[in-house]
């Protein structure tokens, strides 16, 4: 398409599922770097001896804190942080005594770094050809959203300058770090944020790649490859939330966006694709805004109290707020009409981004804007009164919020700021991933990461002796392991890859070796059956390794038919805390004894005498079908077929 700009070519329409616009990412200048965070499977936390586990139910005790932004080395205070503080944000921490001690409460200095965790991190580092540093220095990285009781995250680089190969391409690993996981957010009511500190201090390994990834698919492949190596250590935690991926994405003419917390590997390509879309659309909007004559100097901090317009409103949200004595405050965005409703990625409009900002800075519930009105019970008359009130022309957009005057002002200031950024293009920001692959505003990108030494933890020297020890027991590289699974267990490549990708290779080998069940059966269960169960909505993460092993031992000893594995697993997931034996009884899956089986078969043959006489040997498959319908899950199909064959042969004598 000669003559058309890049942006026009690629922003014709938004990609919808299964109908992706093919893009030339090289031309767009896509650059993606990954930061993979994976919880390590250690016996203790990183800086104390608490159990690295999460607790369910009510907390045993809580405590309330405020985090105060501190001055940088230059005497400066991060404005976003100070703003939050001034808003009076308080954090209520929830804890129980199994998973937290005074260290997590920031009431006791950290204990020395867990050597167990360090060894796992070094193992992963060596598998990625990274060079361990000579002396490890733990740092404090300032984080004051409350997710760390201290106000900083403890982190240390253990190795540098690694490299992995993904599809023939060399992907540099900038650093391998070891850090403490943060507390998990459990709620937010106004200015009170709840965090649970059980997760705080669980060891995390962080792998950071260079920004050399050029397509969405490649981002997924690199993440998968790193995940495989991490799992190959055999010492990483599994299950939802144990791996989190951060993406740094930029395109030419756009800006660096940091996207935090992508939990599903499968989502990575989509997140990248959406972000590219978002940036392209923002660039386009900025150009069009320029053409329509929108100017920064027209974006005035002039707020109108338009409460009167909505005195008699039918809009429930506004009604409720007005009843509480709150006000409606509006701001005019000259020449912005139509742009707020423009979609940037599925379901996310420029207006949505303004709303995100308003929520963050103003703590309001959301915003209303004229691009989406009339709606929500707001009438055409009200819209026109509103426009008149703020003296808005046809091409102007009006944004308004309902809240306390102070919050409303903060919110509208944030909206104006976002509008100014829209004139320029793409703002640098940190965004959080949504489960559908879209993202939402999280906070401004922090300045140069403020890190300073954690003086409570002595530096650790990585001795040659330690490196030698880890080298000597380095796990099999994933590629080599794949080949071995195919060879030793006669798995086809697809199945072997699935076993590897699902991270169940170790479990697979254990089960095959202890149960003597056919490797293919085991592999199919661990991959496809588990996936099928997940699709049905079963909480498969609850299926523990020990119960899976027990199921296969039962198959091996003939107590459970392999055909019944899925039903048994499904039942166990629906009935938490019950035993396999109970599952077998409840489902009537008890394997038939030889006598019982023969009886069923004899009956089937007897009642189909005429059929057998008519079709002779060909009757086998029909009898087999009849019998299996009755005994499926309670008898091994191979055995059934053998008995039927034997009995039919006898008959023909």
């Amino acid at each position, binding site marked *: 398409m000669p003559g058309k700009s890049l942006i026009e070519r690629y922003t014709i329409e938004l990609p919808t599922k299964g109908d992706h616009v093919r893009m030339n990412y090289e031309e767009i200048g896509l650059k993606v770097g990954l930061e993979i965070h994976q919880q390590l499977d250690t016996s203790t936390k990183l800086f104390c001896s608490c159990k690295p586990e999460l607790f369910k139910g009510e907390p045993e005790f809580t405590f309330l804190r405020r985090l105060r932004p501190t001055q940088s080395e230059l005497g400066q205070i991060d404005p976003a942080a100070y703003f939050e503080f001034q808003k009076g944000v308080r954090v209520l921490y929830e804890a129980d005594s199994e998973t937290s001690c005074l260290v997590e409460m920031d009431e006791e200095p950290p204990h020395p770094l867990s050597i167990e965790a360090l060894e796992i991190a070094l193992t992963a580092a060596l598998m990625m050809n990274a060079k361990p540093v000579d002396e490890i220095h733990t740092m404090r990285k300032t984080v004051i959203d409350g997710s760390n009781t201290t106000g900083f995250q403890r982190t240390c680089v253990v190795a540098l300058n690694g490299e992995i190969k993904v599809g023939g391409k060399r992907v540099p690993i900038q650093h391998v770090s070891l850090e403490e996981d943060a507390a998990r957010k459990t709620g937010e009511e106004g200015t009170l944020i709840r965090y649970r500190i059980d997760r705080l201090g669980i060891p995390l390994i962080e792998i950071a790649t260079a920004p050399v990834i050029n397509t969405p698919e490649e981002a997924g492949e690199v993440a998968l490859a790193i995940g495989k190596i991490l799992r190959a250590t055999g010492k990483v935690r599994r299950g939802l939330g144990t791996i989190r991926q951060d993406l740094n994405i930029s395109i030419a003419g756009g800006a660096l966006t940091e996207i935090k917390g992508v939990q599903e590997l499968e989502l990575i390509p989509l997140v990248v694709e959406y972000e590219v879309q978002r940036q392209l659309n923002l660039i386009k909007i900025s150009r069009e805004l320029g053409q329509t004559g929108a100017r920064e100097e027209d974006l005035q901090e002039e707020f109108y109290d338009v409460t009167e317009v909505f005195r008699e409103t039918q809009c429930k949200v506004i009604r409720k707020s007005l009843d509480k004595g709150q006000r409606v405050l509006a701001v005019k965005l000259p020449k912005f009409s139509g742009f707020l409703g423009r979609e940037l990625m599925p379901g996310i409009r420029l207006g949505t981004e303004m709303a995100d900002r308003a929520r963050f800075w103003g703590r309001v519930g959301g915003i209303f804007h004229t691009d989406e009105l009339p709606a929500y019970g707001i009438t055409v008359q009200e819209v026109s009164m509103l426009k008149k009130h703020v003296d808005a022309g046809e091409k102007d957009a009006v944004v308004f919020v309902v809240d306390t005057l102070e919050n409303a002002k903060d919110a509208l200031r944030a909206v104006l700021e976002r509008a100014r950024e829209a004139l320029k293009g793409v703002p640098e920001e940190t965004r959080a991933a949504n489960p559908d692959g879209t993202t939402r505003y999280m906070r401004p990108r922090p300045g140069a990461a403020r890190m*300073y030494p954690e003086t409570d933890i002595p530096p650790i020297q990585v001795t040659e002796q330690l490196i030698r020890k880890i080298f000597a027991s380095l796990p099999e590289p994933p590629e080599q392991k794949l080949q071995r699974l195919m060879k030793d267990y006669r798995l086809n490549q697809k199945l072997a890859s699935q076993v590897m990708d699902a991270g169940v290779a170790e479990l697979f080998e254990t089960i095959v070796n202890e149960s003597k069940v056919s490797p293919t059966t085991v592999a199919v269960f661990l991959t496809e059956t588990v996936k099928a169960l997940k699709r049905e909505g079963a909480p498969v993460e609850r299926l523990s390794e020990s119960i899976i092993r027990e199921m296969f031992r039962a198959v091996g000893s003939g107590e459970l038919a392999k055909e019944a594995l899925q039903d048994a697993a499904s039942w166990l997931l629906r009935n938490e805390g019950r035993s396999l034996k109970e599952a077998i009884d409840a489902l009537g899956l008890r394997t038939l004894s030889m006598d019982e089986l023969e009886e069923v078969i004899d009956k089937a043959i007897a009642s189909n005498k005429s059929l057998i006489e008519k079709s002779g040997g060909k009757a086998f498959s029909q009898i087999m079908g009849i019998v299996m319908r009755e005994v499926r899950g309670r008898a091994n199909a191979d055995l059934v077929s053998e008995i039927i064959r034997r009995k039919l042969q006898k008959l023909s004598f």
Partner: protein
Amino acid sequence: MSENEELSGYRGLAFEALKKIEAEIGDLICITKGTQTYEGILIPRSEYGDEAHIVIKLRSGYNIGVQITPETRIEKIGKGEKPAFVAPPLPEQKPALPKVAIISTGGTIASRVDYRTGAVRPALSASDLYSVVPELSNIARIDTQILFSLYSENITPAHWSEMAKAVAAQIANGVDGVVIAHGTDTMGYSAAALSFALQNLPVPVVFVGSQRSSDRPSSDAASNLMAAVLAAAQAPFAEVAVAMHETTSDISIAIHRGTRVRKCHTSRRDAFKSINAQPIARVEGDKILMLTENYQKRDSSKKLLLKPSFSEKVAMIKFYPGINPAVIDWYVDEGCRAIVLEGTGLGHVGRRCFESIRRAVDKGVLVAMASQCVWGRVNMNVYDTGRDLQALGVIPLADMMAETAVVKLMWIFGQTSSLEEAKRLLEMNIAGEIADRTLYN
């Protein structure tokens, strides 16, 4: 430690290598080792680090230590820019507000992190304290004074005298209250000392410390300081007190009486507890809630009595099973004027100590008994041991804390050399250190 400030902390091999290339802390250097090169800013070495590693800050912000061998190549590739700390402007003083003096003596509350080294330095000036907690300007007009920069374990009775004089000078200047920033380890001792040295106070004198250094966002420094300044500016009492977190939460600050307070935990924010007494007050936000009616009233017309002398010829001996009583003899032979025994239970020491105690009393040494139980009152009439000790001349200290007793005797022997006068002063309640009733709380 290196004499060379430019290469602080470096010794031996690493020091030589850095000196050769004329590197200074903060310079950008490049270290080549085999196939690896490391580029970063030269960071000072901890005094406890070995001689073989050089610490650099990578561009990512992380520090790492690189081992130096004869084969390592080091180059200086850039001159360091020394980050210049620009203290934020002091908030405007509001003339209508009370005037409070903040005297800084050191400790965690008066510390600032050096971001290049990460070392927490006890060097923050009192005016820095004020500038990082701008809210103070809404509570009082602040005057600041750096008296010492000491870790509190290095504070001695001579420093107590200096502190008392400094407070007296501030009061003479007409302040409405005094705040003393102090390391927490011996803050209780200093508070007790000033309780005796500053009598008939017209205004409050409030010690304040922090259990988490002020470089961290979770620090208790700012909230403790605000409460201390509020109490100094507005509280109705005029005594020496200590302001610290009441619980692990950032909700309330307890104001303890200087003679009744003890650090009872190594690390928690609420380490300070009032012993055998209620705290005097509680500060929540901008509210002061008095917890007792029994306190000396603020009254600017009162004339301060400054009695800043202390004697170091006082010892404290903690009894334990198997103690060698010769330790008592040693102190006596050293010329000690008084010994506080920290006995067991109601106030006991084993019979094996009796001879040495008899000798001490015979030589004119005042021997007094407090309890290592920390909480509760000694009573030496219940068991034979107690009665026998009293017969030997040991003075029971009622519900006085052992630490306060030592400080009080140091102060007493700074005032008098008469044993009889010392005994009289010891048993007299001077600053709320002794009470007749022990309340259930």
